[in-house]
């Protein structure tokens, strides 16, 4: 697989590429070969179902080629589906993906160690989802 990087505005902060879920690993592997060796972040957000759109989640990866060229890969997946993990390509993605799983509830297929990283191990639910009640009390402290 090859991508013509000349179409990308690599210096702009907001340069975001929407990638189909099944192409993510291919695209990421190619970019890694092109010198994008610095994994900046992985973030995720949950969007509730509306009249026009079903319940879905956004996952975004930002990669950097030093000194200052960025590209962001964005995915839209149904929030119950799994997203392919990039932890095999960048080790830095390991904990970042665990954090997104912990707080937003996005599962990452192929992740080596998908456990909660911030909340207690027995925490019910994922608090940054839109359908999570903000005043949920956690036993026994609340």
């Amino acid at each position, binding site marked *: 697989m090859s991508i013509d990087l000349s179409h990308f505005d690599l210096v702009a902060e907001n340069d975001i590429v929407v990638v189909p879920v099944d192409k993510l690993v291919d695209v990421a592997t190619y970019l890694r070969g092109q010198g994008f060796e610095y994994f900046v972040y992985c973030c995720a957000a949950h*969007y509730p179902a509306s009249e026009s759109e079903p319940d879905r989640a956004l996952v975004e990866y930002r990669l950097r080629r030093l000194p200052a060229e960025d590209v962001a890969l964005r995915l839209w997946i149904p929030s119950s589906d799994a997203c392919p993990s990039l932890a095999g390509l960048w080790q830095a993605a390991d904990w970042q993906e665990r954090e997104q799983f912990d707080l937003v509830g996005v599962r990452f297929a192929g992740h080596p160690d998908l456990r909660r990283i911030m909340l207690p191990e027995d925490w019910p639910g994922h608090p940054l989802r839109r359908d999570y009640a*903000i005043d*949920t009390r956690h036993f026994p402290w609340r």
Partner: protein
Amino acid sequence: MAVNEENETFVHPLYEALERFPGADVGLTTADRVLTWGLTNALWVFPMATSCCGIEFMAAACSRFDLDRIGTIARGTPRQCDVMVIAGTITVKMAPRVKKLWDQMPEPKWAIAMGSCAISGDFYRDIYSVVPGVDTFMPVDVYVPGCPPNPDALFMGIRRLQEKIRLKREGKWTEPELRPDTPGLRSPAIGRLGDPGRDACTSQAQLDAVLGLDPGGGLRRPDQKS
């Protein structure tokens, strides 16, 4: 004779040992005074510092204020400490760890809740992950309010703790420390989704705010105005 945490009197084992010697009971009052003096002026603290109150604690321990001059030395292990200073927000995940460290401290031991977050959770109180005050899971002797309290306030708290220890060892009943009132304490302003009491306008506004975000992302050139 001394008074413990529950305001019950008990006989210290040291007195039992001293009472075996004839005539030693004459010196017991003096010995008690000396022991109290030693106890109140060697309060080694375990800084349970989790956030910005910990910075104020560090400032209090540094040379400008110098906690050492009242015998309060910070130690890195609970096993050598008399006082636990809880300085900072305690989360639901941290609370069992704090309790475990508290249980590892040898008796006699005291706790100071330093700052609004340790006292009541302050404005993190309604967040899903924050404990609303450390006195929900462990005893607290002195509350030092402030956000964060400055080193002077922490000194005041330690002096109050010394006074409390002294009065208790003299067998005088002391007023239990009251948690400072948090004005305007109430349930969360935004009810949970699907709550009958929740404002429909709020739900719609939140939904609009979410759906108004740029859904496509896509490739944008700098000359394109999105």
